[in-house]
């Protein structure tokens, strides 16, 4: 039994009409898209904004003295203001556009990591990080003599604070780089508490907001985050645009990441000087059209509103957990108290790949594999899982379709 399409919190039917792709069929079946955690679908507003940019208002930014370039620069810079407001950053200069969350983290590792951190300093990450928040630190460890420490999680998939305290005990830790929401377990981390903890120990905090920013209101000043990163494509925006937030005083002290046009104050063959943030970190022509698309995505999300989105997704998650846990032989990973619409599971006798293929034939798109979190798979005692992720356009019926689909998978593998 499930609620009708019209959720109590938002009008799913109306929202689904905003996403053209949701009307598609796959293998002759209605598309049930439960892979938004990997990348979300795009609303008409985003598509139109990008089209409008290319059709009516496009030129390079920050360099032309002509009307088109000025208007395009205005539109591009307006997205910086919008993003700053969206995250409640203290100023627009704290928002840097990158390609994606991965690039944002690499930027921090290359600049802050090499120029500010010193050999012998330590960085702490958790056992539930995406590879994007593991590998850049490993590379920094190997090239720069930084120590990398891993804070444990509990069996229910929550950060183990005792372990965290142990990692910080010797005073060497200068950066805590941790997810705001796990892309495998759905766990939200207590970010305000973590920021206060890191600061009390003389460390900065970097939050990987790739998942969290899609599902709840993020207030960076309230959290007191030092660094925050996310990708536009998971927030109903286009690919190719990501965001890095960093506190102004940190950015001021950081050297550039890439060199080239736009990031300089002056260039001569002897010496170049760097532009102020944020431009110091945006070398070359940026993803102008995608940035415009991100702006439209933020507008769209805010027009629906986080209170409604969060309430709807909570109802979906509760329904999903209740429905799937009734399936015999199905194991759901993680049981954090504060968790969002990410359900990773294994099924006795059926490998995640086979589950995904059998569901796909029924039009149901889920992800299968290690979800770019191989160490976490090991920690949870599995090698891969299937994963369903929910978005604002997900309906209760789709969760029921997943449950029905899984019962069919069970028949095949019984």
């Amino acid at each position, binding site marked *: 039994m499930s609620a009708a399409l019209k959720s109590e919190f938002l009008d799913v039917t109306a929202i689904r009409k905003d996403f053209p792709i949701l009307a598609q069929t796959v*293998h002759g079946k209605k598309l049930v898209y439960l892979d938004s955690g990997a990348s979300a679908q795009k609303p008409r507003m985003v598509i139109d904004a990008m089209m409008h940019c290319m059709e009516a208002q496009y030129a390079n930014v920050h360099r032309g003295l002509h009307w088109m370039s000025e208007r395009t620069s205005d539109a591009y810079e307006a997205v910086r203001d919008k993003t700053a407001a969206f995250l409640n950053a203290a100023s627009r200069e704290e928002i840097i556009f990158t390609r994606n969350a991965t690039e944002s983290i690499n930027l921090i590792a290359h600049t802050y990591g090499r120029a500010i951190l010193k050999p012998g300093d330590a960085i702490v990450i958790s056992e539930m990080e995406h590879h994007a928040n593991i590998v850049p630190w490993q590379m920094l460890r190997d090239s720069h003599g930084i120590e990398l420490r891993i804070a444990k999680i509990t069996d229910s998939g929550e950060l183990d604070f005792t372990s965290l305290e142990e990692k910080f005990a010797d005073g060497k830790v200068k950066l805590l780089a941790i997810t705001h929401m796990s892309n495998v377990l759905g766990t939200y981390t207590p970010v305000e508490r973590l920021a206060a903890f890191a600061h009390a120990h003389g460390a900065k905090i970097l939050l990987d907001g790739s998942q969290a920013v899609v599902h709840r209101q993020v207030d960076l000043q309230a959290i007191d985050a030092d660094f925050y990163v996310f990708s536009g494509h998971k927030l109903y925006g286009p690919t190719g645009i990501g965001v890095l937030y960093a506190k102004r005083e940190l950015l001021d002290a950081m050297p550039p990441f890439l060199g080239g046009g736009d990031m300089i104050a002056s260039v001569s063959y002897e010496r170049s000087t760097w532009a102020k943030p944020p431009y110091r970190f945006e070398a070359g022509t940026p993803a102008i059209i995608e940035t415009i698309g991100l702006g439209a995505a933020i507008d769209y999300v805010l027009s629906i509103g986080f209170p409604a989105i969060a309430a709807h997704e909570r109802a979906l998650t509760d329904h999903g957990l209740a429905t799937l846990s009734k399936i015999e032989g199905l194991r759901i990973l993680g049981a954090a108290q504060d968790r969002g619409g990410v359900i990773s599971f294994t099924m006795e*006798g*059926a*490998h*995640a*790949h*086979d589950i995904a*293929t*059998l569901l*796909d*034939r*029924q039009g149901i798109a889920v992800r*299968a*594999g*290690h979800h770019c979190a*191989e160490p976490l*798979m090991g920690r949870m005692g599995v*090698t*891969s899982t299937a994963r369903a992720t929910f978005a604002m356009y997900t309906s209760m019926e789709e969760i029921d379709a997943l449950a029905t689909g899984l019962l*069919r998978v069970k*028949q*095949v*593998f019984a």
Partner: protein
Amino acid sequence: MSETADLYQAIIMDRTKNPRHAGKPPHFNREGHGDNPMCGDRIHVYVADDGTQVHHESRGCAIMIASAELMADAVAGLTADAIAERRKAFEAMVTTGTTNPTLGDLNALSGVSEYRSRIRCATLPWSALTAALEGAK
């Protein structure tokens, strides 16, 4: 589930559930490894040169395990050159979906051609076997 019967044929389900060549054998001359970084599947293949007996230790999906099993059947007693030829024919078959009478039971895997992301699952055991045969003893 008629829509997946082409992929999960009875022989595939049977060999996945009841493997005959699984586990590390007491004697072997060569070994090779295959990894699928996309999904974390892995296979280790052991070859006993005398008569090319193949065993495997696999962690993966039904398609990969069945493929490893059917491969072990199909290469028993063959020379390295003959195995290389089989591999080529097998890869052509799973890519095109066109069955090949010389491949026998291996043709049960022809269905993967329609599932592009799964072809790799079927070919991984063969990569591991090739690594074993090409590697040092």
